[in-house]
């Protein structure tokens, strides 16, 4: 066989022009996606953007209407046990099989695979050794998710699907979960992650795709996502007792000129703000009309002069978060 020599070159996931309709709704509308081997790839997007449908087509749970889909070189639509042996799936929050203990479940799932990880070592790796004899109904949310991951990786998958893995975690549990996931990637596992936490994508993902209306609208490393306007820095300072802001591609130059203007004094309250991934993400998924409207609302409420698009977007993100609550 010569093909295995070429294996590293073939992407883990290759999707071209994927379509899926439910009645009138075009849930996935010409989506393209390539996930390379060994990377953590985050799929971001609002609920209803076609994210879950796409992932479930990749996992083999749903059938597509048209398009090319290759996951580990096979079409998930008609792949069998051998293919499932090479993938791991961690679904959204689950509470099934509540009467079995952690150790029983991990040992049981290990029996589905030809070359499973050692159950006890795996339980230790996800930090559940002390809970090994506990029935799963008694686990906390974070412990339950770590068990879900253990069940997803017990067969040593080449590709792991993680669907909103840290929903409901406290910050400490989330940090330790991220370490676990990074460790898997460092061990060579390709990971496809969906999340609503931009901080999570920023911490974990090598690349992210933003999905909107059934297609990918942006794709890059978290730090490079978004266009030039969305990534503009904001220089903020105090002058005559009011906060001044200036959005710019060249913050160094702006700071330089401010420094010259205020010399020999300090520029009061000087800050250079870079947009967070969340702000960039929101600018990508928000229609410009909506963004302008939010910005207008914010401008009316806040006594901040010289509002700029980037700052307006930051304001929009606050409004949206409040709506979510």
């Amino acid at each position, binding site marked *: 066989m010569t*093909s295995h020599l070429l294996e590293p070159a073939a992407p883990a996931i290759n999707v071209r022009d994927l379509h899926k309709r439910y009645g009138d709704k075009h849930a996935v509308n010409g989506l393209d996606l390539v996930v390379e081997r060994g990377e953590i790839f985050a799929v971001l997007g609002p609920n209803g953007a076609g994210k879950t449908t796409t992932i479930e087509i990749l996992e083999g749970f749903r059938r597509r209407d048209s398009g090319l889909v290759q996951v580990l070189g096979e079409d998930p639509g008609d792949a069998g046990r051998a293919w499932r042996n090479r993938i791991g799936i961690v679904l959204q929050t689950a509470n099934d099989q509540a009467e079995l203990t952690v150790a029983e479940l991990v040992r049981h799932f290990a029996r589905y695979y030809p070359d499973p990880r050692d159950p006890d070592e795996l339980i230790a790796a996800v930090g559940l050794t002390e809970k090994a004899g506990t029935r799963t109904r008694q686990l906390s949310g974070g412990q339950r998710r770590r068990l879900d991951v253990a069940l997803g990786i017990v067969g040593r998958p080449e590709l792991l699907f993680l669907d909103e893995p840290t929903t409901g975690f406290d910050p400490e549990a989330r940090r330790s979960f991220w370490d676990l996931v990074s460790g898997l990637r460092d061990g060579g596992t390709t990971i496809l992650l969906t999340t609503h936490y931009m901080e999570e994508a920023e911490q974990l993902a090598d690349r992210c795709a933003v999905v909107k209306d059934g297609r990918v609208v942006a794709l890059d490393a978290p730090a490079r996502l978004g266009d030039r306007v969305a990534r503009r820095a904001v220089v903020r300072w105090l002058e005559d007792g009011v906060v001044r802001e200036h959005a710019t591609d060249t913050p160094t130059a702006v700071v330089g000129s401010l420094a010259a203007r205020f010399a020999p004094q300090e520029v009061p309250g000087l800050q250079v703000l870079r947009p967070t991934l969340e702000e960039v993400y929101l600018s990508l998924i928000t229609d410009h009309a909506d963004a302008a409207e939010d910005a207008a609302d914010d401008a009316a409420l806040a006594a901040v002069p010289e509002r700029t698009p980037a700052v307006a977007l930051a304001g929009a993100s606050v409004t949206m978060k409040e709506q979510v609550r």
Partner: protein
Amino acid sequence: MTAVADPTTDLRGPRAVRLPSAVSVALARTSVELKQFFRERDAVIFIFAYPIIMLAIFATVFGDTPIEFGPGDEVTFATYFLPGMIATGLLLSTFQNLAIGIAEERDNGALKRLRGTPMPASAYFLGKIGSVLTTSLVQVGLLLVVAATMFDVELPTDPGRWWTFAWVLVLGTASGAICGVAFSSIPRSARSASAVVTPVVLVLQFVSGVFFQYDSLPGWMQDLAAAFPLKWLAQGMRSVFLPEGATAIEPTGSWEHGRTAIVLGAYLVVGLVVALRTFRWRRRDDG
């Protein structure tokens, strides 16, 4: 959308591995199914212990009321009641257990999780059959022990009767289990599963001559019951544990073994076709 033989994307060849056999996975499934069943207190009481409790209550209350088939031909109440409780136990352990259990597994995502692993589908169903068969056998065994030791029911010694017992038990268990799998697609959620399944099972118990002497039921009720397997299962079990003279109070004056086999077999075949066509690994609202 045909798969083009592209050497750069074909990763299958060198990865050929031996997956665990369906039989070994089925055995593992049987064992976790049994663990889960016996750790669920509701299931143990209302499925496993229910017929034993009912036998104990009824045999105690009506202990002095023998059932007469003709002059001088009678059995104790416990003897008459035992076959009905065996049939009920089989219905609960197979049909009710699987109809509710699988509906819950579908609703709470257990089935979807399993579908995402290389577990063969056949191993899942074999595991269900293995666990259902085990619980049914233990349940029937306990019923026989309780009946014989606590209520002095005389168990048959004729091998022919035990042969009848065996085939009625196997056919009843198989058709009950398959119908349970098929029926599990009807409840929309785990919460509604017991509400949908329990009344069906209860009504069947009342119309099928399990609690009442079958010939004392109104004619239309007998006709209704004859369309469902529990009546035939109970009748088949009566033919094992009651004396030959008891046919006098059967509607046709005979045990109708042939018809029993046909009805139970028909439920098995139809249930299998329906189960294969309707079984889903995901909730209905999950696309």
